[in-house]
């Protein structure tokens, strides 16, 4: 029995840590309806500023906190002013992509300045421990809890009773109306970003002290857990974020207690999916709250797509098809193979995210399902590779649609968060379901691609094969978009209530989109498995999902040609920047930001 007390205490302690990030995310979401993926990076910056203050300048704790909060707030203000404000009047999805780009840039800057080696961040509090249950807690636990709860309370009071707080709430309910009432919306946004960033920075420093360890990989994890906690609590609800964090900590701790450590995150993400299915606005969203996204399609704004004449496309396709006949290096071919594989994934995502409006952040899961299915079919059942890849596509279509179906009733950002969770769940199931997937050891010795008994191993043949598959999928998708199905998809995206009024069954059409998209992504994963010959649970990770979304937004949502152009660009750019060595991801992030800034509707525009 005493163990359960310990599990509870531990859950609350770690929930405490999550709360620090979640509160900042909730504040920003409350005002700008934006999931700020850069919050984890500000947390990282805060941790390293804290390190400089403590280890180099030997500042006392109160001064350290002030220094960190002030620096982080300045970073937040810069992000708001130069990263997000210019995007105010563009597509709703552009700021989301901008925060991803900003987080690349910040993480890389920290890594280049401080080196990627982990550092110790010593706690400046006296080292006393209080016995609690079977374990102990220290003064830092209390300080973290104090900062989390008091900042939530302060923000609650600020939002409810101060004039600027009213302005913040007014702006969050209706930006245009607030402006007409004389609220300076930009000042409000600035205030919110400054506060959230200060909080994020301080939390990074405190968590660093808590573990006596900071490193540059901490930012993505912080963002992931913070987002889960925030959405569980009800996005945009500050006290809800604290309770959501504690709940998340408890569920993880009990999950470890019952099933073991390697199931921990599985429970975190299952909790998220369950909460979203039962209460799509989070646990503590009030019923009176306005719907999280406008009902009509401003989340994905239509723009005038760039019309590319067919003969240009045909010439381009022919040009790429004959490329291996010229003396190009295998490196160029391999890079293009990667682009074609990513292109298939992007086709899939541009259909469900762009045409259908279901912005998925867990698309790598479809790759993984396709890859594992195809690898296992060919290895254990000796299915010919060509058929196994198709099998991978079919299973990915079926299983993917089934897994994602709980999120069909969600809208806007919530779809992204739910799919993010589903993606993580798939990866964790692959890790833990050892009898089938061989767990962390992975699957090795996957046979190379072959077609009708001929092995495709030379780079040119793999190139032609993947190009051909991608072109066929692209043509099918192009046909789909011009059919009545495509029109129905777009109708649902643009106004689901009107679409329903016209008798369209939303779930059926969403399923159709995911079936088609799941097939394309599964085939891409299957080909990758045979190309790599070895896969494990890390091969298809969250970064791939984020990359795919970046490609799709860059190319123009729903735009088939755009998805392919985007894939070539985002596979090609990091390769071109190789010459810059450690700086290449930084440059990539900056280029991404510039593209979002000047072409928020994507290179070729939304269809």
């Amino acid at each position, binding site marked *: 029995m005493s163990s359960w007390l310990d599990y509870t205490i*531990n859950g609350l302690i770690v929930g405490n840590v999550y709360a620090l990030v979640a509160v900042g995310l909730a504040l920003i979401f409350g005002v700008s309806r934006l999931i700020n993926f850069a919050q984890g990076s500000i947390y990282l910056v805060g941790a390293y500023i804290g390190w400089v203050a403590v280890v180099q300048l030997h500042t006392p704790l109160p001064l350290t906190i002030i220094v960190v909060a002030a620096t982080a707030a300045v970073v937040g203000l810069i992000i708001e002013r130069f990263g997000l404000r210019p995007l105010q009047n563009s597509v709703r999805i552009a700021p989301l992509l901008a925060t991803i780009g900003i987080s690349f840039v910040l993480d890389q800057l920290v890594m280049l300045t401080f080196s990627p080696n982990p550092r110790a961040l010593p706690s400046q509090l006296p080292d006393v421990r209080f016995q609690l249950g079977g374990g102990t807690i220290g003064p830092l636990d209390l300080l973290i809890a104090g900062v989390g709860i008091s900042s939530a309370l302060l923000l609650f009071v600020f939002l409810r009773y101060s004039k600027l707080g009213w302005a913040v709430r007014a702006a969050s309910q209706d930006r245009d109306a607030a402006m007409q009432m004389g609220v300076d919306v930009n000042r409000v946004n600035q205030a919110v970003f400054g506060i959230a960033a200060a909080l994020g920075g301080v939390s990074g420093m405190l968590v660093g002290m808590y*573990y006596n360890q900071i490193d540059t990989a901490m930012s993505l994890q912080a963002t992931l857990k913070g987002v889960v906690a925030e959405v569980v609590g009800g996005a945009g609800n500050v006290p809800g974020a604290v309770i959501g964090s504690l709940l998340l900590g408890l569920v993880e701790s009990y999950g470890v207690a019952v099933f073991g450590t390697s199931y921990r995150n599985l429970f975190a993400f299952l909790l998220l999916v369950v909460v979203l299915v039962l209460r799509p606005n989070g646990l503590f969203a009030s019923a009176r709250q306005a719907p999280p996204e406008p009902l009509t399609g401003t989340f994905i704004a239509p723009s005038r797509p760039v019309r590319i004449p067919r003969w240009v496309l045909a010439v381009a396709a022919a040009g790429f098809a004959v490329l291996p006949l010229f003396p190009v290096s295998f490196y160029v071919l391999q890079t293009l193979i990667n682009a074609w594989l990513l292109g298939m994934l992007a086709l899939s995502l541009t259909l469900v995210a762009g045409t259908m409006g279901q912005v998925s952040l867990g698309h790598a899961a479809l790759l993984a399902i396709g890859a594992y299915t195809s690898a296992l079919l060919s290895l254990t059942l000796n299915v010919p590779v060509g058929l196994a890849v198709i099998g991978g596509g079919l299973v990915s279509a079926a299983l993917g649609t089934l897994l994602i179906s709980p999120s069909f009733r969600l809208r806007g950002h919530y779809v992204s968060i739910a799919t993010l969770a589903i993606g993580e769940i798939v990866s964790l199931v692959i890790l833990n379901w050892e009898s089938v997937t061989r*767990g962390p050891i992975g699957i*090795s010795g996957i046979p190379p691609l072959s077609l009708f008994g001929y092995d495709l191993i030379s780079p040119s043949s793999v190139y032609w094969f993947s190009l051909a598959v991608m072109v066929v999928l692209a043509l099918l998708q192009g046909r789909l978009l011009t059919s009545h199905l495509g029109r129905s998809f777009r109708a649902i995206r643009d106004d689901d209530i009107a679409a329903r009024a016209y008798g369209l069954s939303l779930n059926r059409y969403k399923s159709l989109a995911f079936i088609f998209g799941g097939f394309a992504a599964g085939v891409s994963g299957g080909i990758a498995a045979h190309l790599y010959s070895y*896969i*494990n649970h890390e091969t298809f990770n969250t970064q791939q999902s984020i990359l795919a979304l970046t490609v799709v937004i860059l190319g123009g949502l729903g735009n088939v040609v755009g998805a392919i152009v985007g894939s070539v660009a985002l596979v090609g750019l990091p390769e071109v920047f190789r010459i810059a060595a450690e700086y290449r991801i930084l440059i990539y992030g900056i280029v991404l930001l510039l593209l979002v800034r000047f072409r928020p509707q994507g290179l070729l525009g939304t269809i």
Partner: protein
Amino acid sequence: MSNIDRRTLVRGSLAAVVAGAAFSRAALAQSSEPILLGVSGPLTGPNAQYGAQWKQGFDLALDEIHAAGGINGRKLAYQFEDSQSDPRQSVAIAQKFVSDPRIVMELGDFSSPASMAASPIYQRGGLVQFGFTNSHPDFTKGGDFMWSTSVSQADEQPLLAAYAVKRLGLKKLAVLHLNTDWGRTSRDYFVKAAKEYGAEIAVTEGYIAEERDFRSTLVRVRDANPDGLILISYYSDGALIARQARQVGLKQTICAASSVYSPKFLELGGEAVEDVHLGTRYFPEDPRSEVKKFIAGFKAKYNGQEPDAFNAYSYDAMNMAAAVLKIGGTDRRAIRDAFAKVKDVSSVIFGSATFDVESRRVKGAMNAELVVRKGQFALWDGKPT
């Protein structure tokens, strides 16, 4: 500067591009040009710290190789391509290296997915893929161009088990391991050996690499009531576990795999890692001459910084590459064959390293039993803690 730096390399490759066909292969092979190795590894992304450590070890080894006259009079250099440990990028890098005639062999990658995805390309392209941190049991099964000096876990884990069970007298063990291919393989070898030595395994817990909070895991460990904790961890997570174990009041003996051997383990773990036992391949007061030379050289080159396990792996790997090139010259196939011929190469990890031609790995890593005393790694004096 003995190692050619990035900028020279960039300028060099730009010049090569501009000159294009004017450069014949023969011209490149002139003895004034350094012999070029390709390195595929993480310089950015979540594993960037290991790529940075590799570089330190490589550069030190290159200094020494050049001071000793280079490779039959020619200099040696490497071209480090950042893969972020991502298989998509490591396969592109593999094609890049395979199609670049200046590259005579490849070192890396870091993670198994990235390394083994690239193996088919190296194998078909006929370029040696020399993976010096690749402990995955199937890595060298990728083909006869895959060679590895990574310490086989089949060798290392029984040594650790012997330390914990026979020497320290632990009878009931809790094993915490990274849930990666390395951690999982290691755990299986450890559990097998520990059972053979008569210990009971009370509980095993696998955790993912990003995990930071181990308190609940440690409650499970406590409830299993072991008399010792075994950490199959890297230094950063190992330090976290040790700290949290002490915080939740676990006072059992902790015994860790050699991968925690790093000054960072002491820095990050602080007082909590005091009395932690670990097996290592070398240690600071090691009387072996190759170790003395390595540690003294490293400290001199990097402002007194202590080298760690990953520095030693990459230092050894570069020395091994040099030894192989001295026999094999610059022909890619001859280099592969030279791996089988090279004998008794001086090595920090192995003492002297010779490949087992069957498995294409090196057997018989050195072993020392250390304990953390007063915040320093020290040879274990046989006293219980």
